[in-house]
């Protein structure tokens, strides 16, 4: 049995050890980089979103009728002589399988890959009954020999280098093996395991699909081990989660196509796709037939399938991609980013399959960068479910954390909140020594927070400056409300001033509704949904979307929160639901507004400064805006320097960077290295949160690269002179 720290200090210590393991860092980084490229190749010319929607539809439908599909499967499989079992939980599944082995007099078990067997710790149970269990998937065999669990759903030993594998195999075979000869290492497994296959009397496989109409188990492999596991021994047990049920073969083939491509294997199909119905011929089996069992595992799945929110998690087809694209996984690997199930889906499933204690701090380790959501082949809104899971975990704690209670109290009261922000200016003034950045953080921040300098709260917030700044447009063609967000209002009012300069003479009337407050995203990120709902309502009372053509934001996070979360938060409030949808429809980010609405002309002569771009997670994935900022940068006359990982998170994630400063620093450092490699003088982005993180990190590096909000970068070249 594995256990994941339930204590944040212990967990952070574990993360620090992983971050310091250069070997692991290198192995992971080469894996994720290669995987990203290969995945992109796999989908060249295909419409990923449309394919994912199709898979989501198939799974959604199947999940809504699992009991019916199970009965149908059972009937068809039993007609072919198979025995079908339903295990309510892990203990029962283990018992069923051990009983099968005992009744059939089995001694030696060979297994092909099954995450479900990992979920129930089947090997440990069977070994305790005196059975010999051999994993036959190369990666699984490697980790079995090392006494580890898988660090990835489809590449279980991807945290290991060839050197480590060579060492291990040298020990197993008793002769020195060359780590550079990977083929030779694979040959060791082929030879050693062939004997295990031939002498086994029981084979245990997983299953990727269970076809209800024909009682068929479908298994995909590249190595061919599942074929041997299901053929050579006289008994075959397929252990599958109930959510693997689909109505028929066409449904399975649609999923198969996306599953294989999404793993980044650069194949359209795996080497083997095997479909088994009933008790097939087997020369050494009773009566010349295989003793065939299919064990379905419930373990909370049926309850999940009835949950209006969490049933979405059952759509998972176990492709492992939510790990591959995750900037946190990229730094620490699956053993430090999951319990049994790893990656984003692991943060959710751990709670339901392995309990609150194992998920307690793990579930907090999410940046909400949305990379997993964008890559999920079943369209699961993983970041949302992770926050919902965090909320569940919190609701069962003896009391909510102090920081949550404090945040909720302050956010709900705008006057108090803004009063405290103004006070912060006075409190930090001595630390800044007249500078805009605090380089040496006060003692109550631990040393681990020193990876970035922090900005000073502005002397006068935007809301106080507004009456002097705004010039009423006499005959506006567009009426626009600015949603400032806390950072622009209280820390970076100059970003809004740049916007005002840019709008001059362009026929836009820009209002700053003064009663607006925090968008509420920070509350949602801390699992405080009620607080998020309360401030959402306050904002709708402050800003009536009916009076405006657009609601403009300079903050990508506020923007995507208003667009995506607000309607969801308020859908049950009859008086505000409509208004929330209206607001969502009018929200627009700065770059899109400039390029698509105002259609700015390229500057006659830009500075030509070399500028790199950082794509905020909530802009490129949250709002789906990709082209406009790059177009604007070029229109403003910059020498745009593209780099490979523009859309990878900067590591800010709001309060994440305070909870997990070491992770935040590691992710930020990769970003800054990539930017530095472009030779850029400027780093431009369109979210004040990213500005805070990037500027603070560059300052600590004493880097000359300057960070600008897109509005500031554009104003420098595109603002019209005062009339």
């Amino acid at each position: 049995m594995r256990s994941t720290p339930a204590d944040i200090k212990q967990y952070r210590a574990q993360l620090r050890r992983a971050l310091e393991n250069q070997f692991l860092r290198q192995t992971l980084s080469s894996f994720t980089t290669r995987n990203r490229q290969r995945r992109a190749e796999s989908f060249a010319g295909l419409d990923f979103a449309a394919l994912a929607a199709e898979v989501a539809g198939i799974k959604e439908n199947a999940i809504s009728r699992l009991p019916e599909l199970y009965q149908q499967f059972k009937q068809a499989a039993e007609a072919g002589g198979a025995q079908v079992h339903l295990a309510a939980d892990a203990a029962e599944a283990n018992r069923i399988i051990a009983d099968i082995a005992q009744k059939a007099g089995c001694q030696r078990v060979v297994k092909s890959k099954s995450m479900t067997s990992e979920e129930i710790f089947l090997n440990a149970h069977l070994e305790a009954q005196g059975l010999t269990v051999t994993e036959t998937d190369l990666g699984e065999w490697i980790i079995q020999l090392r006494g580890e669990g898988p660090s990835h759903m489809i590449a279980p030993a991807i945290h290991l280098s060839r050197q480590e594998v060579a060492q291990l195999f040298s020990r197993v075979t008793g002769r020195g093996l060359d780590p550079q000869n990977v083929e030779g290492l694979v040959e060791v497994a082929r030879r050693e395991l062939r004997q295990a296959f031939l002498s086994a009397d029981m084979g245990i496989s997983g299953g990727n699909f269970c076809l209800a109409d024909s009682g068929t188990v479908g298994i995909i492999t590249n190595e061919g081990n599942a074929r041997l596991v299901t053929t050579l021994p006289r008994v075959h047990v397929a252990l599958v989660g109930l959510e693997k049920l689909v109505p028929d073969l066409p449904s399975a083939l649609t999923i198969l196509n996306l599953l294989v491509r999404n793993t980044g294997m650069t194949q359209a199909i795996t080497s083997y796709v095997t479909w088994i119905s009933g008790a097939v011929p087997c020369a050494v089996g009773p009566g010349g037939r295989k003793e065939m069992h299919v064990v379905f595992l419930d373990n909370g799945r049926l309850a999940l399938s009835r949950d209006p929110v969490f049933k979405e998690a059952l759509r998972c087809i176990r492709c492992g991609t939510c790990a591959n694209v995750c900037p946190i996984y990229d730094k620490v690997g699956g053993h430090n980013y999951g319990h049994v199930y790893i990656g984003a889906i692991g943060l959710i499933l751990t709670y339901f399959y392995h309990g609150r204690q194992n998920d307690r701090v793990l579930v907090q380790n999410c940046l909400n960068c949305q990379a997993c959501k964008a890559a999920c082949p079943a369209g699961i809104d993983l970041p949302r479910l992770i926050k919902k899971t965090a909320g569940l975990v919190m609701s069962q704690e003896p009391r909510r954390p102090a920081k949550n209670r404090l945040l909720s109290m302050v956010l709900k009261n705008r006057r108090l909140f803004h009063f405290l922000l103004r006070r912060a200016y006075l409190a930090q003034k001595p630390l800044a020594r007249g500078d805009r950045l605090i380089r040496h953080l006060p003692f109550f921040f631990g040393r681990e927070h020193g990876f970035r300098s922090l900005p000073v709260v502005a002397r006068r917030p935007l809301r106080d400056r507004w009456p002097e700044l705004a010039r009423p447009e006499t005959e506006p063609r567009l009426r626009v409300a600015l949603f400032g967000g806390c950072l622009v209002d209280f820390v970076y009012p100059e970003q809004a001033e740049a916007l005002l300069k840019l709008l001059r003479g362009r026929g836009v009337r820009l209002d700053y509704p003064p009663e607006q407050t925090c968008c509420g995203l920070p509350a949602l990120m801390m699992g405080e949904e009620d607080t998020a709902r309360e401030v959402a309502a306050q904002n709708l009372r402050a800003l009536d979307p009916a009076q405006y053509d657009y609601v403009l934001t300079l903050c990508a996070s506020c923007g995507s929160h208003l667009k995506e979360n607000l309607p969801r938060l308020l859908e049950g409030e009859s008086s505000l639901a409509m208004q929330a949808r209206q607001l969502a429809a009018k929200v627009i980010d700065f770059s899109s507004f400039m390029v698509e609405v105002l259609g700015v002309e390229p500057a006659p002569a830009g500075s030509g400064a070399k500028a790199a771009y950082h794509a905020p997670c909530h802009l490129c994935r949250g709002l789906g805006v990709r082209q406009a900022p790059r177009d604007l940068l070029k229109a403003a006359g910059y020498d745009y320097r593209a780099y490979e990982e523009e859309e990878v998170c900067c590591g800010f994630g709001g309060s994440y960077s305070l909870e997990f400063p070491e992770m935040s620093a590691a992710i930020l450092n990769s970003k800054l290295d990539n930017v530095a490699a472009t030779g850029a003088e400027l780093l431009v982005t369109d979210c004040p949160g990213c500005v805070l993180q990037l500027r603070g990190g560059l300052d600590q590096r004493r880097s000359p690269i300057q960070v600008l909000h897109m509005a500031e970068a554009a104003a420098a070249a595109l603002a019209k002179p005062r009339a």
Partner: protein
Amino acid sequence: MSPESLQTSFTQSLAAMGGRAQGVPDLEAAVAYAVRLTHEMGGRTLAAPGWSQAELECIQVAGQEAGLQVFSQDLRAQADNIFCGFTPANWGVAQTGTLILDSLDEDLRLASMLSEVHVAVLPASRLRPNLASLQDELQGLLQRPRAYLALVTGPSRTGDIELILTMGAHGPRQVYALLLEEAA
């Protein structure tokens, strides 16, 4: 798709997955191909399940002439002694280079799994553009009370060590598809 373009596409797709497709005029030529291949690679045995009596005789004669042992049944007894698996295949899928083998017969399964080299034979007329175009046929096979249906695309492979693609994990190291071009 025309028969020629199906064959070209199948050949390219299979090659991309590390296998090889080759047109042959008739079964006799296919047998000669497999026997020569086995002989050249230093193999001593040929496992040939799934053939009619007449076809098997032809295989046995050619195999014995080249000094190969030919097995056609009870392959479990030869489990660690199968060099070349010589089997029929039911269909080929041009888009992916996939061979489809109705593998209910255990000996056919063993020949295609335990061999070092798998040579599958199918009429070129049984190539189809994609899996979707075979859905009805495959569903028909699965609807029988018992079925073991195998989709085989190239040799056995793994990427479990540092994602480095390596051929020949637990199944055949090489896969050949011989396409019978004789008039249907």
